[in-house]
């Protein structure tokens, strides 16, 4: 086995991990074992598989190449009654059933492994994994095994599970999808058979045909086409009826008129055995329209799916203290009066008051303030905000629906509902279209009555059918589906096509600061003084969960650190410890000043000056070695690399840019100055409610695009004409945004507006094409030259033109070609 491992090791010298195949770090090499592991997670997973005889896993060519990542949680909340009530259903054979969203699912070997859970955990009846959506359906015997045990096993194999919240909506959507698929299949089968029978009629009309056969084939067509009207085609009549009742214009209306006119006329001509029937055209029409609708819906689903999965990853449990016993419960089970235990680095699950401990809280999610604020006993904390420094005990005041964040989310939903639906271009066209076509048909009929009364009605009906807005109804959805699909490949998830329509014209662009213009996390922005102390600073900060420590770790990821003796964390101050016999203090200026000894001599005056000159909007961290101040750092939220270039490009395209931030005005001014905003384009210290009001007031003057990442932006995003959520944003913000940028940086924003513009051009071109065809068809019909054969050729040609035109359009770059061009 060692020989094998040596052969497949990537670099030749390193040993490959027996589980994941990555190189094993030298420190973890075990000379006495035939198996080598890159981490403890891989070791555990290998042990589980081996002891259950599942070594076959290692024979898959396509295997995960990532170390096993486990959360190590106990998943106690999965067994809680309120969890059961929310997520667990009972199957007909008495098993419990739930859906779990799994992290870390990549490939076919994951399917194999996850579906072997019944072998690994006795009592599990079935696990089915949907690999595209990373959703596993689990069925188990409640009397034999607990869900938490199953969850722990999944976790140990590297698939940390999360409850899937959309179970009910998912079931509904599945039903809808199946019904749609059935409709398309039935309409397709009927269309093909009607076309075959019509082929006989057409060739008969050219070569001559026995009247009894002609009559027979007409009746066959008629009998076959009726089901497509009463089953799949019913949706168009239902849509048209709904449009009529609400007195609005919808594409379904002209479609329903053409379909009804065609069917009635065809039926009459079949019965009286004379005149044209258009059954083949009508059957294909229904099929093509259903396909167009399906494409449109699927594109929107894909983006919604992505947001849904992000929902499922949110933590949903809390630890409560009862009679000195700490246990984990789902967030839904929290009640006012309970006492929560919240460790450093965890989010609060409910609103409450601190009753024990002091710490700092990062409320960026709620307020947009990027700097943590210190809190002590008696302070109020809010659900969703992050406990940064030290463990806290919190008495729950408001939980669930009455917490501040839940109220904010309700506000978000409300403003999303209030948003006036955008009248889509295609539907505006439908209004004009119905009027023009109906007028034309009446004119053709009236004129025909005076010239050739016996053909007047046939000509008018031919006109109605040939102008049926098949291509017109396909023009917008197709162009948008293709654009949305390509945009998704480029990391831009567009939920509604109308968002693209609105982004095509420049307007006002309102940007949040924290997390949107900046990276939204602490980084070392400035460093003054000796560089040889950097390893000391990193060594001290390495074990700390403080966000400033995070900043240092990210700044120097590769640095080797010396060992520290007696590292002590002083809450609200900093860290002190002994390294190589030197006493090193790292922390706030006041904390470091306390440790400076007079006997160590005067500090370097120019150094002190330089340290004090660090931008005051940054959080200062000073470093003293053996009582002498040697260095200072400024930590803050770094501006994204591509922010300035992207903003300049957007301004050049005519967008007006505004910063709308909840952060303090000095920080906003500093960022705004760097990125070239004018003073009147900066709004600071805005609460979520202020943001909403600001966007609404701007909207009175024109379309507003709001870009943000936090819950504090969510209401404003929902209220804006187009809301955009950026990479790494809060789930509430993603749920309400029309567009979600799944890749970091503002470059995607520029690409999005350009792509939207090109998409609109494609839509207009498609509409021009289909109207052109309709004019030709209508002209032929009006002068009585349109035979059913010409109609049968003309109608699909116009649809095919639109399909090809959309497919080969350059709206967004195709993701596959990206590397070649870059």
């Amino acid at each position: 086995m060692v020989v094998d491992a040596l052969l497949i090791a990537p670099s030749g010298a390193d040993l490959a991990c027996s589980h994941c195949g990555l190189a094993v770090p030298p420190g973890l090499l075990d000379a006495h074992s035939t198996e080598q592991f890159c981490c403890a997670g891989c070791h555990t997973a290998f042990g589980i598989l081996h002891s259950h005889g599942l070594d076959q896993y290692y024979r898959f060519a396509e295997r995960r190449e990532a170390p096993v990542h486990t959360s190590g949680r106990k998943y106690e909340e999965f067994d809680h009654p309120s969890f059961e009530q929310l997520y667990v259903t009972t199957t007909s054979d008495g098993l419990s059933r739930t859906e779990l969203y799994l992290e870390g699912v990549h490939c076919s070997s994951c399917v194999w492994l996850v579906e072997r859970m019944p072998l690994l955990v006795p009592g599990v009846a079935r696990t089915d994994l949907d690999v595209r959506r990373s959703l596993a359906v689990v069925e188990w015997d409640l009397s034999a095994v607990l869900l938490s045990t199953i969850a722990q096993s999944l976790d140990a194999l590297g698939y940390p599970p999360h409850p899937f919240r959309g179970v009910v909506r998912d079931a509904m959507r599945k039903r809808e999808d199946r019904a749609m698929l059935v409709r398309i299949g039935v309409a397709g089968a009927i269309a093909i058979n009607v076309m075959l029978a019509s082929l006989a009629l057409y060739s008969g009309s050219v070569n001559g045909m026995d009247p009894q056969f002609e009559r027979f084939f007409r009746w066959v067509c008629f009998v076959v086409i009726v089901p497509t009207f009463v089953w799949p085609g019913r949706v168009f009549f239902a849509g048209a009826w709904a449009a009529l009742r609400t007195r609005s214009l919808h594409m379904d209306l002209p479609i329903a008129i053409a379909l009804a006119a065609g069917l009635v006329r065809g039926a009459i001509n079949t019965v009286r055995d004379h005149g044209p029937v258009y059954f083949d055209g009508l059957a294909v029409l229904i099929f093509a329209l259903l396909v167009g609708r399906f494409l449109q819906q699927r594109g929107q689903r894909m983006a919604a799916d992505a947001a849904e999965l992000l929902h499922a990853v949110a933590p949903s449990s809390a630890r409560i203290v009862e009679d000195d016993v700490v246990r984990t419960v789902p967030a839904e089970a929290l009640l006012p009066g309970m006492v929560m235990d919240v460790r450093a680095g965890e989010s609060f699950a409910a609103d409450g008051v601190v009753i024990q401990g002091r710490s700092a809280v990062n409320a960026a999610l709620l307020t947009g303030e990027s700097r943590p604020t210190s809190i002590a006993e008696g302070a109020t904390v809010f659900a969703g905000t992050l406990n940064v420094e030290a463990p806290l005990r919190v008495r729950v005041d408001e939980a669930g629906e009455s917490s501040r964040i839940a109220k904010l989310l309700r506000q978000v939903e409300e403003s999303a509902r209030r948003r006036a639906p955008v009248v889509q271009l295609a539907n505006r066209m439908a209004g004009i279209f119905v009027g023009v076509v109906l007028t034309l048909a009446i004119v053709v009929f009236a004129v025909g009555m005076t010239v050739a009364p016996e053909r007047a009605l046939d000509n008018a009906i031919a006109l109605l059918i040939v102008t049926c807005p098949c291509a017109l109804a396909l023009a917008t959805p197709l162009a948008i589906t293709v654009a949305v699909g390509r945009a998704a490949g480029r990391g831009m998830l567009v939920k509604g096509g109308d968002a693209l329509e609105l982004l095509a014209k420049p307007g006002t662009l309102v940007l949040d600061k924290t997390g949107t213009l900046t990276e939204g996390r602490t980084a070392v922005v400035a460093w003054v003084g000796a560089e040889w102390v950097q390893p000391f600073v990193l060594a001290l900060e390495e074990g700390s969960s403080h966000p400033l420590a995070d900043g240092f770790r990210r700044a120097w990821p590769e640095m080797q650190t010396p060992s520290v003796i007696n590292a002590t964390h002083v809450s609200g101050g900093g860290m002190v410890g002994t390294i190589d016999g030197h006493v090193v203090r790292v922390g706030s200026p006041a904390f470091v000043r306390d440790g400076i000894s007079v006997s160590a001599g005067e500090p370097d005056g120019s150094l002190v000056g330089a340290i004090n000159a660090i931008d005051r909007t940054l959080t200062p961290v000073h470093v003293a070695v053996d009582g002498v101040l040697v260095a200072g750092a400024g930590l803050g939220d770094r501006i994204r690399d591509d922010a300035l270039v992207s903003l300049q490009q957007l301004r050049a395209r005519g967008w007006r840019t505004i910063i709308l931030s909840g952060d303090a005005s000095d920080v906003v001014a500093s960022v705004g100055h760097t990125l070239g905003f004018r003073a009147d384009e900066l709004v600071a210290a805005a609460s979520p409610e202020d943001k909403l009001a600001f966007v609404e007031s701007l909207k009175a003057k024109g379309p507003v695009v709001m870009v943000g990442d936090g819950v504090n932006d969510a209401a404003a995003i929902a209220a804006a004409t187009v809301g955009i959520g950026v990479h790494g944003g809060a789930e509430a913000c993603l749920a309400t945004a029309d567009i979600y940028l799944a890749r970091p940086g503002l470059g995607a924003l520029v690409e999005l507006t350009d792509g939207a513009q090109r998409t609109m051009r494609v839509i207009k071109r498609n509409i021009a094409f289909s109207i052109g065809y309709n004019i030709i068809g209508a002209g032929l019909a009006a002068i009585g030259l349109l035979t059913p054969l010409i109609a049968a050729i003309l109608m699909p040609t116009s649809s095919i033109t639109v399909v090809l035109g959309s497919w080969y359009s350059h709206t967004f770059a195709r993701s596959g070609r990206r590397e070649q061009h870059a």
Partner: protein
Amino acid sequence: MSVIFVVLPLALVIVSAAVFAFVWSARSGQFDDLETPAVRMLHDDAPTSGPRVP
């Protein structure tokens, strides 16, 4: 009386059988997930080494 009067209705009966089969398979969820079953069929062999677990 031509053979077409018999064959064509017969063909329509076969078509409706096919449509019925499609409707049944769609409603029973066979088109819900088009990716995983393709992968799963490759895995159905029982483990060939180690103890067999019932």
